[in-house]
């Protein structure tokens, strides 16, 4: 698949995602209409559509808020900016995206934004602390590829829309639990009314699941493609593979993360989840396993990584 084909495919999928989420919101509104009345149903529909439009316009900013990322200036991080400058030039970007940081010791990174010009790359404090320059370059190239391939708009949009569906369903589930649909009306009364009621409840429970499935279908192949682009940009598949191995070996977990933003990151931030969250993360993994991604890079570059890696300081000392 060429870059142009992928960009075009992404544009089409963005449209599909918008339609799919529109349908989801409509079915939730339908369920609410069954449980309560036309007014509440219309209200949910209205809020859903308005929020969707708002999300489309300001998705970049919202993701920064959701993940707790804030911008970093060139003066603060001259070396990291130098890396992202060279990576952007090698990727043929018009300008290097600005860098954001999340104050978190777990290493991870992602890119977000609605257009290439307004996109930004986010790294965690832990990524900078743990990665050598070569590995960091691989990670940055992966994120810049997501921007260049126009993956970010789709992924950013999916993040905010998954968020809104989850929010509405959650709210309705609580209403059902506490209110039991009280104050509303039971349509028809008899058995037909009960069927409708059950259908409505099932819809509300399944809607967030459907949202997550849409999100999941978007991200898995995209990660392989971004890895391939990154290897081409840096001409160093081993650097990225080393970075992925380091992520694999790291056991820390990001603090501010939700299912809605999980697919944005270079590696899944939810793998250490427990309880119901773990079940969901396992069923709907947004990322291919790191070992598989490293394997593809190993094959392309004709090298084998060791099972363990020396610490960053030893790597830099050996390289200097």
């Amino acid at each position, binding site marked *: 698949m060429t870059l142009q084909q992928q960009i075009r495919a992404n544009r089409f999928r963005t449209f599909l995602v918008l339609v799919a989420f529109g349908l989801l919101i409509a079915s939730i509104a339908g369920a609410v209409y069954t449980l309560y009345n036309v007014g509440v149903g219309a209200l949910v529909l209205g809020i859903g559509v308005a929020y969707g439009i708002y999300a489309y316009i300001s998705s970049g900013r919202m993701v920064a808020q959701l993940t707790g990322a804030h911008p970093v200036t060139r003066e603060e991080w001259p070396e990291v900016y*130098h890396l992202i400058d060279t990576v952007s*030039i090698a990727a*043929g970007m018009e300008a290097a995206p600005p860098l954001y940081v999340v104050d978190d010791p777990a290493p991870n990174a992602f890119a977000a934004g609605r257009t290439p010009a307004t996109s930004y790359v986010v790294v965690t404090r832990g990524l900078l602390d743990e990665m050598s320059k070569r590995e960091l370059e691989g990670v940055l190239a992966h994120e810049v590829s997501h921007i260049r391939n126009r993956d970010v708009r789709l992924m950013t949009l999916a993040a905010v829309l998954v968020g809104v569906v989850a929010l509405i369903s959650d709210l309705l589930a609580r209403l059902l639990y506490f209110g039991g649909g009280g104050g509303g009306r039971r349509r028809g009364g008899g058995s037909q009314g009960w069927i409708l009621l059950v259908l409505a409840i099932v819809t509300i429970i399944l809607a967030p699941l459907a949202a997550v499935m849409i999100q999941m279908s978007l991200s898995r192949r995209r990660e392989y493609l971004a890895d391939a682009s990154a290897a081409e940009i840096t001409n160093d598949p081993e650097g990225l593979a080393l970075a992925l191995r380091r992520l694999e070996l790291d056991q820390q977990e990001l603090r501010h993360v939700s299912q809605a933003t999980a697919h944005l990151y270079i590696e899944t931030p939810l793998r250490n989840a427990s309880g119901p969250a773990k079940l969901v993360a396992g069923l709907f993994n947004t990322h291919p396993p790191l070992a598989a991604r490293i394997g593809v890079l190993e094959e392309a570059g004709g090298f084998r990584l060791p099972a363990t890696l020396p610490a960053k300081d030893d790597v830099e000392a050996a390289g200097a």
Partner: protein
Amino acid sequence: MAVAFVLVAILVALLVFVGWLFNRMVRLRNEADTGWANIDVQLKRRNDLIPNIVETVKGYAAHERGTFEAVTQARAAVARAQSPAAAGEADGLLTAAIGRLFAVAEAYPELKASENFLQLQNELSATEDKIAAARRYYNATVLRFNNAIQTFPAVLLARAFGFARREFFAAAAGERELPAVSFQS
């Protein structure tokens, strides 16, 4: 009647296909042009840095005239170069000349410790990283463009439309080849 209809349909399909090939070649050529412009920007930036570095070294080691002259000449050759291949060759000579200049600087501890010299050295190495990055992109676009105009059936049209092969920005040996990466999984 039916035959005429089929003939017209084939003709239209052929025209659409030719148009698609043409647009593809134009797009790839524009990408290569952008890639070259990126290299040019970085080469100019480095050429602007060099006189400052030469002056700084001169302040400590005025008698190393031959080294300064070699750098100045190589710099002028890069500025004069008309084609990517010529620029690539001049770039190689300039890099070597700068290497010798820094080797000279090694012998002067005060110069090596000078704040100004260190900053210039850092800027130069940052610019050289960017030249290398721009070269990777440019050579990748040239490879795509050349493949596009030399393969069948586009090769039949390329000459008629005036698409000619592009030169690579010659790199040091071993750097030019991109790894053949296939990630279809």
